[in-house]
């Protein structure tokens, strides 16, 4: 594992009904992430417990399809990134599907790893923005109920400001790595 790998140590669930392919995908990731595989939709529903950071889903599987697994994950309301990795060429039916990304098979190791890194980067940035908003809301609340003199003397207020400044620096570094469409995904998450 390298320190530079975005989201290193994150939990990734791979759902793929071709065993050899599932193993290959897992081998591409398991140096950097905690990887679990499920070999059909039913196994995916059993394996998924909401703690996953990323789920990579085949669409066309016997009995329970990837689309059904995706619905289950979205219905659960967990903060998890989901990408479809499928031989099915996207059609207009994707309009109201709740995935975050889509790769058409066959995929290379590089594409697969890029996909996971990109989704984890979006996830980190999304979480950072949530914290940023929460801190800003607290500061605005204090400003509307405390005098300027009280704020100047408050160590707690100063600590909130310092935390916000630090978070600003982190987010500035993160956003430099992100594409416009990834930033759009962050806006969709709010």
């Amino acid at each position, binding site marked *: 594992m390298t320190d530079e790998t975005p989201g290193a140590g994150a939990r990734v669930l791979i759902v793929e009904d071709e065993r050899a392919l599932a193993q290959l995908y897992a081998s591409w990731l398991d140096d950097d992430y905690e990887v679990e595989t499920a070999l059909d939709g039913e196994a995916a529903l059993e394996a998924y417990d909401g703690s996953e950071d990323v789920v990579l889903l085949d669409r066309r599987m016997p009995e329970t399809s990837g689309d059904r697994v995706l619905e289950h994950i979205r219905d659960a309301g967990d903060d998890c990134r989901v990408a479809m990795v499928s031989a099915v060429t996207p059609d207009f039916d994707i309009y109201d599907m709740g995935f975050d990304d889509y790769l058409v098979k066959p995929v290379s190791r590089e594409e697969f790893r890029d996909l996971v890194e990109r989704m984890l980067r979006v996830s980190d940035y999304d979480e950072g*923005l949530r914290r*940023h*908003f929460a801190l*800003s*809301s607290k*500061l*605005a*609340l204090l*400003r*509307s109920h405390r005098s*300027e003199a009280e*704020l*100047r*003397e*408050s*160590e707690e*207020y*100063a600590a909130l*400001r310092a935390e*916000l400044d630090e978070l*600003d620096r982190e*987010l*500035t570094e993160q*956003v*430099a790595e992100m594409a*416009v*469409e990834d*930033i*759009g*995904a*962050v*806006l*969709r998450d*709010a």
Partner: protein
Amino acid sequence: MQREELEPGAAALVVGPVEARRSFCLDRLSTADRSAVAVLPPDPAGVVEGYRRAGGEAPLTVVARDATTDAGRLESDDVRVVDVDAASLPAVGEATLATLGADGPAPPADRLWLADLSGPLERTSVQQVYRLLYILSEHVERVDGVGLYGLGPSVDGKTTGILGQPLDYQVTVRPGGAPTFGSPAGRIDGAP
């Protein structure tokens, strides 16, 4: 803070009546070196005209709802119209960010005016609008541009305070009067 103008890299909440905001922002928009972008103006045609009247010479992109109906009439060599679903803040955000990038059809914008945050605040949430402001201001700063974000004076103080947090200034404008430059609502910059 005494200030009379916004330096490159700055982002400001511009608070005041519609016409005063429009006049202030069009003046700043017209100083673009590379290109300017006006986002969700209520009257795209009027903005194009006002931009030219204010002396704007750099290419202008207008990101607007139902703009396609006006696009043929408004577009020229240096005016581009991007039609977006104004109800979708992600769509507005992506279209606007594209104007700040190097890959767009116009040179990357160095002056951005998001005409009025009141509509997005009614349609979405404070948090979603906050995210949009934060992301846009971050990008504007990276290209050394100036970002202007309009807000009506009737928006409550708490919301104004939250939305101002990621920005550098709050500019209060009034009809016929000089704009007042200050820190975003009540920010205590000298606090320990």
